[in-house]
C-alpha cells in the first residue's frame, strides 16, 4: 500500500487533532474528511500504532486510546500512578484499580438484556461491593488458590481497606466528596474522578452517584467485547494461574 503525501498529511493532521481533543464526533469535518478516504484512514491507524495508541471508531465517535501494551504517552491513568508511586502508597493505587474494576463490572453486564447494567451507582454501593469482594478473596485465599504475589497484594489491600473509615471527618462535616487515601469515599472518588476527567462518567456530587456516559460504553465495548482483544489482554497479563500450576508440576 502506498500513500500519497496528501493522505499522510490528512492522517497525521487528524492524529494530532485527536491527540488534542481525544474524542471526535464522526460528523465533525475534521474526521469526516479522513474517514471518506480509506487509505488515509489506514495511514491514521499506522500513525497511531507507532505512537503506541489505537484508533477506535464506535460508529458515533472516533476515540484515540493508549494501547495497554504501553505507549510513549502519558494518560490520566499514568498520572494517577505517579501520584501513588511511593512504595507504601502502592496499595492505595491497587485499591483504586479494584474500585474501577468493580464499577465497570456493574456497568457492563448481560447484552441480552435491554439495560446493559445499572444505570448509575452510588458511592456507598461501590464501597459495599468492594468490601464484599475483599471478603470473598480473603476466604478463597485460605485454600491458596491465588498466586503468591496476588495473594500478598490482596492481603495488603484488605488490610488498608478495612482500617479505613467510610469518610474522613472533614468529608462528613462538609458533606463533600474529596479525593485522597484518607477514607474509603476518598479512594472511590479518586477512581471515579479519573473516569470523569476522561469524560467517561458524570459524578453527581450531591447525590454521590456516578452515571456512565456513552463514551464509557463505547470504550468498554471496544476493549472487552472483542474476542481477539480479550485474548490479547489475557496473554498480556500473563498466562492464567492454572497454567502456572501446570508448570510448577512439570518442574517437580
Amino acid at each position: 500500500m502506498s500513500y500519497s503525501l496528501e493522505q499522510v498529511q490528512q492522517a497525521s493532521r487528524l492524529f494530532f487533532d485527536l491527540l488534542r481533543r481525544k474524542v471526535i464526533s464522526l460528523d465533525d469535518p475534521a474526521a469526516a474528511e479522513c474517514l471518506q478516504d480509506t487509505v488515509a484512514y489506514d495511514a491514521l491507524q499506522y500513525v497511531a500504532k507507532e505512537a503506541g495508541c489505537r484508533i477506535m471508531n464506535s460508529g458515533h465517535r472516533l476515540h484515540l486510546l493508549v494501547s495497554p501494551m504501553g505507549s510513549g504517552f502519558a494518560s490520566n491513568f499514568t498520572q494517577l500512578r505517579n501520584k501513588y508511586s511511593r512504595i507504601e502508597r502502592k496499595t492505595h493505587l491497587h485499591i483504586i484499580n479494584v474500585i474501577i474494576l468493580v464499577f465497570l463490572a456493574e456497568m457492563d453486564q448481560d447484552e441480552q438484556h435491554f439495560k446493559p447494567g445499572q444505570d448509575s451507582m452510588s458511592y456507598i454501593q461501590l464501597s459495599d461491593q468492594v468490601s464484599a469482594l475483599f471478603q470473598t478473596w480473603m476466604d478463597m485465599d485460605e485454600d491458596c488458590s491465588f498466586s503468591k504475589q496476588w495473594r500478598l497484594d490482596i492481603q495488603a489491600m484488605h488490610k488498608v481497606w478495612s482500617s479505613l473509615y467510610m469518610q474522613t471527618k472533614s468529608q462528613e462535616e462538609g458533606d463533600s466528596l474529596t479525593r485522597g487515601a484518607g477514607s474509603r469515599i476518598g479512594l472511590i472518588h479518586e477512581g471515579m474522578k479519573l473516569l470523569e476527567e476522561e469524560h467517561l462518567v458524570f459524578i453527581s456530587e450531591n447525590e454521590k452517584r456516578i452515571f456512565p456516559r456513552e463514551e464509557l460504553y463505547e470504550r468498554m465495548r471496544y476493549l472487552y467485547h472483542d474476542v481477539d482483544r480479550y485474548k490479547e489482554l489475557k496473554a498480556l497479563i500473563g498466562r492464567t494461574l492454572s497454567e502456572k500450576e501446570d508448570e510448577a508440576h512439570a518442574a517437580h
Partner: protein
Amino acid sequence: MNWNDFGERNKRLNPLWSLGAGMNLGELQPYKEMIALSVLLQVYYLELESNEQRSREDLVELTWSSLERFGIAKLGSPESVERLVDGLLWSGNGGDFEANYYDDHSRQMAVQKYKYFTVDEDATRTSWEENGTTIYRLSEYAMELIFMSHEIIDEFQISIKLLEIQMHIKHGRVTRAMQDVNELISRVRKMTQQQQEYRNALRRNPKHIFSEYGTQRHQRLEEIHQQFDEERKHFDNIHRSLARLANDEKDVIDFNELRLLSERVELSRRVHDELAEVVLSIFEAETNLRLNFPELFWGAAGFNFRTHVWEEWVKPEGLPDGDSMETLISGLFSPSQDFIYPLAWAWEEQDVGFLPDELPDDPDEAGDEEEVHYVPKGIPWAGVCDLWLPVLTGVAEQGSFTFSAEAFSAEEQRRWAETPDAVDLWVQFFHTEITVQEQEAEGQGGADECQKLIQQLISGHPELEVLRGKLLRTRIANRQQGSIRWPGLEISPYTITIVEK
C-alpha cells in the same frame, strides 16, 4: 399526599378486587379470576368486531372455550360454569355489585355500585324481537379493567384503540371517546419513551439489535410504513365520524364537548406522528450501523466485561499481581500530553520532505490557538510591526506577498533572524484563514496575535485600511524552491494572499 383523587382510585380498583369474589366454583376456584378476565376480554373483542353474539348462553360458551384453552376443561362442570357467568352478570343478590370507598369531599365512607356487564340496548332491541335473548356489553367498569390490564402489556395496539374510539363516537358516547383518546395519548407517549430508551441502548451497544427487544422490532420497513398509513386512515375516519355526529345529533350533544374531543384527537394524531418519527429514526440508525459498521457486530455475541473479564477471570482466578490491574484498565484512557506545537516541525519539511501538520481550524475554538502554539509572553510588538509592515503593505497593494530573501534588505534580514516572534506569526497565519476585522477591536482581549498585529499596523498606517474585511490565506508557494535561508533563519516561502470572495 393528594387525597383528592384517593376515592377515585379506590373506585377504579374496587371492581378488580371483587372480580370473581364470593363465588364457590369447586375445582375451578383457584382459577376463577383468570377465567373471569378471559371472558371479559373475549366480549371486548366481540364488541370491537361489532359481533352481537353476547347473550348469556354465548358467555357460557366463551367460558368453556377459555377452560379448553387453559387445559382445565375437565375441572369444570356445567353448574360451575353457569355459576361463574351468573356471578359475572349479577352480584349475589341479583343486583349491582357494591363496595365501599372513602369520599374525601364529603369526608365519609360511601358505597359504590357497579356491574361488569350491562344490557346492550341497541343490539337487544332487535334480538328481543327475533328470539327473546338479551345481549350484554361490557360496562364502563369492566372496560376499565381491560384497559388496566392493557397498561401492563407493552404490545399495545394503536389500531385497536382507534377502532374503539371510532365505535364510541359512532354511538355518540362522547365522554367515553374522550377518555379513550386521552388514554391513547398517554400510551403513545409512553411508547415513544420506550423507543427512545431503545435508541439510547443501541447507541451504548449496537448488539442490542439482537437482544430480545431489538428482534421484536425487526419488521420490514414497508410493514412499518403500512402500519402507520393504516393508523392515519383510522384518524381520518374518526374525524369523519365526529363531523357526522356534530351534524346528526346537534340537539343531543354539547357542541363544546365535541370541539374538545376533536382537539384531543388532533393532539393524539400529533403524538402518534412523533412516535412514527422515532421508530423510523431508529430504523435508520440500525440500517446505518449494519451497513457502515458491520465490525461492531463481529465477535462473540454476549461478550461483556462482567461475565468474561470479571466473573470468569479476575474474581475467581486472580491476577499475577496487583500491578496487572493497570494493564486491564489502562486501555480505556486517551493519551494526554501538554501538547506544544513546536516550530521546528514547521521547518522540518525542508529536511524530511513533508509538510507541517496543520491543526484544522476549529470554529468553536477560535480563541484556543494560543494554547496550541507556544508563544512567549510579551511580544515586542514595535519590532515585530516594523518587520511586518512591508509584508502587509505588499498585500494591500498587490493582493499578495511572498516571503523571499529578495524582499528584504540585509538589515531587515538580520532583524527577522533576531525576532523569532515575528517568524512565529508566519506559522500562525499559515494555520488559519484570517478575516481582517471591520472595526477597531475594543480591547485586545479575545483577538489572537495575527489579528493584533493587523490591528496595530492598520491603526498606525491608514493606507492599510483597505484590508479591512478581507480574507487572508497563507500558503507555501512554489514547493520546489525549497526554503529561504539566510544567516540565522530558515523559513518556507510563505505567501499571504487576499482571497477574493
